[in-house]
């Protein structure tokens, strides 16, 4: 597949550190888009603020880099103004679930047809490694030098509880699965979430002595388990392993379609 077709090649080199997983997620997004066969003009890619939120700048779509945590709100306006557009929202774990947590659960509750791709690196990368709402208990960051004593969000569980009609969790180690999840998420008519576990070797890796970038990739291999495999073993056997796969795929009326029906209904009332 020709990635260059979807990239703004003059915007490279990118700003990401060596070993950062963001580029792997970006490529998975582009593979998904290519398979669906979307035209570049009909895609709006929206992001918040953070390392991961720089993704749209490299993509040759209509791209909107908003304020920290607010990407889903801008995306909601875009989608409502023209429901025919395919709106993909790229956020970091801090962006989506700390400052933007309220918008995240409400977009899910409304079931508006947006695809949210959350780059979960367990840390605030851009601002220098402060702990985030997904930093595991006991793990370190520049503002958790003695280890975090907060309990992390499970982003996928949060997305499900808030009403998302599609939720999948993947990792950059399993990159070829990740694009399949993203493809299904974009195709889904409704609010869909893909939680992509991706390494930040420079901040999270350093603070937690995770070794090299490739060690961090291998960590995903050893510490995740597919939904299918998990379902054949007991919770004790599963232990701390993170479950990956399509976790939710349900049907529910979608917001912009319902709004179109509402328009039709009130216009017929005369």
């Amino acid at each position, binding site marked *: 597949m020709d990635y260059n077709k979807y990239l703004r090649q003059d915007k490279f080199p990118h700003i990401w550190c060596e070993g950062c997983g963001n580029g792997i997620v970006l490529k998975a997004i582009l593979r998904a888009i290519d398979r669906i066969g979307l035209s570049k003009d009909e895609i709006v890619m929206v992001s918040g603020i953070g390392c991961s939120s720089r993704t749209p700048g490299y993509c040759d779509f209509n791209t*909107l880099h908003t304020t920290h945590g607010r990407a889903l*709100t801008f995306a909601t*306006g875009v989608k409502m103004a023209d429901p025919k557009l395919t709106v993909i929202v790229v956020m970091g774990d801090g962006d989506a679930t700390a400052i933007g947590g309220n918008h995240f659960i*409400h977009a899910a509750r409304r079931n508006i047809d947006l695809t949210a791709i959350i780059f979960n690196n367990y840390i605030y990368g851009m601002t220098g490694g402060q702990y985030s709402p997904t930093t595991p208990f006991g793990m370190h960051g520049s503002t958790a030098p003695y280890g975090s004593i907060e309990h992390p969000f499970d982003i996928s569980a949060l997305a499900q509880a808030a009403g998302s009609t599609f939720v999948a969790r993947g990792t950059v180690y399993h990159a070829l699965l990740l694009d399949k999840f993203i493809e299904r998420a974009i195709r889904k008519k409704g609010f869909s979430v893909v939680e992509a576990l991706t390494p930040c070797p420079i901040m999270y890796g350093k603070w937690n002595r995770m070794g090299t970038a490739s060690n961090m990739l291998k960590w995903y291999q050893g510490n995740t388990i597919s939904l299918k495999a998990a379902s054949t073993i007991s919770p004790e056997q599963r232990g701390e392993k993170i479950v990956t796969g399509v976790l939710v795929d349900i049907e529910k009326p979608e917001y912009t379609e319902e709004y179109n029906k509402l328009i039709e209904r009130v216009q017929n009332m005369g």
Partner: protein
Amino acid sequence: MQGNEACAEGALAAGLSFFAGYPITPSSEIAEILSQRLPRIGGRFIQMEDEIASMGAVIGASLVGVKAMTATSGPGFSLKQENIGYAAIAEIPCVIVNVMRGGPSTGLPTLPSQGDVMQARWGSHGDHPVIVLAPYSVRETFELTVRAFNLAEQYRVPVILLMDEIVGHVNEKVRLPHPSEIEIIDRQKPMVSPEDYLPYCQTEDDIPPMANFGEGYRYHVTGLCHDETGFPTNDPAKINSLLRRINRKIERYRDDIIEVAELELGDAEIGVVAYGSTARSARRAVIMAREEGIKVGLLRPVTLWPFPEEQVTKLADQVKRIIVPEMNLGQVAQLVKCSAEGKTKVVPLTRVDGEPISPQQILDLLKK
């Protein structure tokens, strides 16, 4: 018809087709009316989870090319500020209505105030362009709402309609103009092909044409300082030219943007500068004073920002003193003092107890 209703009608007359808001007294009627009216004309209304979200949604919708608005009051206006700054730097046309109530904080939810004059101008961080209009009657609320959209579209800036609780809730008989009598301005679209489109180019008029998302132009919009292509830059020369240009858009077109109303200023020896609902009392006070033979006139800024400095300076040249009644601790009085340049005495008449300033109060001060 109430001021809030006139605002909703004005927005529809201007071509509004998207509204996002969050309920707050005393602005909620605007959202309620639009939730009913917008779907009837094929437009869309959404009640977002808060005011930050409402402002974001308005910007997103405007980028797709629809006219978009939000309405709120003090606390919600505070929450919108970061995204208002975004609209200013990314040059996204939009209208923000703030029906002022008493503050700070939750303050006086149901009582009038004019405490947000400075917040309207400087509430978002950094030097940024905004236009602020302050209607004083129901009829003018309609007209200025239309004008707010026109200015937003013409100059690609956020425009704030600064109403107050009294203007929002007062009932007055008005005859709304026929649609054919209403001038509508739409943003300039690019005349070049997508390949040649520079979304933030330096044009002769300082206002770059704006393409809609989804029409084939595929450009990048960011709240970071950017160059003509729309991409982030750290180049001092490019940063400088962006920030100077977006602010120059207002300075350069002051004469078009600034509107003032005058009453009995011809032979006035005392001037009153008042805006919004306080100008209603000031108007009454001027009429009463004239009946008693006091030579007084009223200068009413309809545009609050950019502030009508030249008009105030001219007034200061003419009169012995200027009285500035307002429902805050002297926010506009400070501006008047600056513009008067020491040429005349400026006397603030302030009130922050949730009660309006009465004509008698102003008259008493005029007689002193």
